[in-house]
């Protein structure tokens, strides 16, 4: 029985089984490569038509990218500010005025200290009496409850690690009862930065949705322009994956070129702002410099753009392609 079946096969030719698995895999990879190159060429052959989509993607990515770059720089700046808080040393009650003044002078001589100020207990009480409005109550106290204080000012721009070392060192003096770092405003700044980060996140999600819609719509038009081809391909046995493939690659390329343009725009933003920022920083006596987008962040931006392009295409293709039947 095998004989006539074989002869029919060689005549009429059920050909798919004759192709080995390995060859089919190679052909599949070759088709991916072919489609990838073809779709890119198709986009580049009509740069003006593609430019609009590219620019929309680029701008939608540049906006959160620029804000993110700004935030990154603010965090770098706040890291420096954190270290510029004033340190208050409360001395033990048994410390005499003379000992306190000597300690203050010794601390001022340290490398990691810019300046110190000694306030003896009586002066502290006078200040408190003037500022608090509790004059009458304080007069009833049998003795001065306030300790003597040394205010320590670390140099501007000290590293956080150095600051922590300094605090440990200050704690180790016998006359020092407790050490307090005034950080309230730094904490407020950081809370604001966290809020800004959240806002950028929300903005980023909205703009990502916009990219999905723009790519989706562009792909919808591309599908409409190639309805005949899709019909023929389905008619001669093209699978949905085969039909989808060029459109998914097209979305990927839209995302990639848009991402590259966004990256260029961010570099341009940085170049435009870097000079004025450096001037401003110099006026404040700071060596602060605007950091450009890091290589990792640029890569992440590009990958996100490609993913968004691909997803936008997928969304559009799954909505429109299945309705086109021969």
């Amino acid at each position, binding site marked *: 029985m095998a004989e006539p079946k074989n002869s029919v096969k060689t005549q*009429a030719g059920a050909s798919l089984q004759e*192709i080995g698995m390995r060859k089919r895999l190679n052909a599949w990879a070759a*088709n991916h490569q072919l489609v990838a190159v073809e779709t890119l060429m198709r986009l580049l052959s009509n740069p003006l038509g593609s430019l609009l989509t590219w620019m929309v993607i680029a701008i939608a990515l540049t906006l959160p990218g620029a804000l993110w770059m700004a935030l990154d720089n603010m965090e770098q700046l706040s890291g420096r500010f954190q270290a510029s808080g004033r340190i208050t040393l409360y001395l033990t009650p048994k410390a005499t005025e003379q000992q306190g003044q000597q300690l203050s002078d010794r601390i001022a001589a340290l490398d990691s200290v810019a300046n110190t100020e000694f306030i003896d207990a009586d002066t502290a009480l006078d200040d408190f009496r003037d500022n608090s409005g509790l004059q009458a109550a304080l007069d009833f106290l049998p003795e001065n409850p306030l300790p003597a204080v040394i205010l320590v000012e670390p140099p501007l721009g000290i590293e956080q690690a150095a600051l922590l070392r300094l605090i440990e060192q200050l704690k180790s003096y016998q006359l020092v009862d407790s050490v307090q770092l005034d950080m309230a405003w730094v904490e407020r700044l950081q809370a604001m930065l966290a809020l800004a980060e959240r806002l950028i996140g929300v903005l980023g999600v909205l703009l990502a949705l916009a990219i999905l819609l723009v790519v989706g719509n562009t792909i919808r038009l591309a599908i409409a322009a190639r309805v005949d081809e899709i019909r*023929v391909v389905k008619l*001669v*046995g*093209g699978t949905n994956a085969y039909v989808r493939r060029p459109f998914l690659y097209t979305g990927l390329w839209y995302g990639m070129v848009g991402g590259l343009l966004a990256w260029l725009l961010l570099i341009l933003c940085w170049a435009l702002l870097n000079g004025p920022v450096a001037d401003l920083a110099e006026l404040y006596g700071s060596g602060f410099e605007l950091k450009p987008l890091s290589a990792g962040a640029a890569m992440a931006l590009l990958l996100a753009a490609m993913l968004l392009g691909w997803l936008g295409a997928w969304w559009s293709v799954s909505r429109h392609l299945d309705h086109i039947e021969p």
Partner: protein
Amino acid sequence: MTMVQFDRVGKRYPGGKEALSGISFELARGEFAFLTGHSGAGKSTLLKLMMLMERPSRGQVFVDGQNLGRLRAGQIPYLRRKVGVVFQNHQLLFDRSVFDNVALPLQIAGYTPAEAGRRVRAALDSVGLLGMEKRNPIELSGGEQQRVGIARAVVNKPALLLADEPTGNLDPELSAEIMNLFLRFQQVGVTVLIASHDIALIEHMGHRRLILDHGHLHEGQIAGAGGIYG
């Protein structure tokens, strides 16, 4: 061996129009048959059922032993790779060369470019268009375009070849040429079913004849040059 089997097949389109009713027939492997009838008799619908471009409302269709009613949507492309189709309007793509048009089914089926190239040239040779690979189909005459369509339909060596009014737009001489091409494919073992209302040509050629009349099927055999089928 049966290539095609229709078992009490009916097709009703949404809106209530009964395109086919109670259709039963078989096509043997390697058979050559015509499908005739007035326009609107259901010829195209019947062909579409074999490609799963339409699904029957009632009854069952078998192609190459496969019950098409059991095929999932994902399996349809693989059925279509076994069936070659030729249309009156040829459905060629004018944004690519003759070669690329014919190579499309092979590209889809996963042939390497070298293998595909060999088969495309063989298919073009069999329809007499070997020198025209690089031309755009739009530059070709109607008869030549139809032959490109036939080359595309046979390039994957399908077991079944369907044609829907393949000579609809051609003059009698070209029509006879096209029909002879189909006959040559039958001679190498392909099952061929041609829908046509070109009665004169069909009668001249003979062969088995399936006649559709308002959705009902009648068998008719005509003695002629091709002999009698029973």
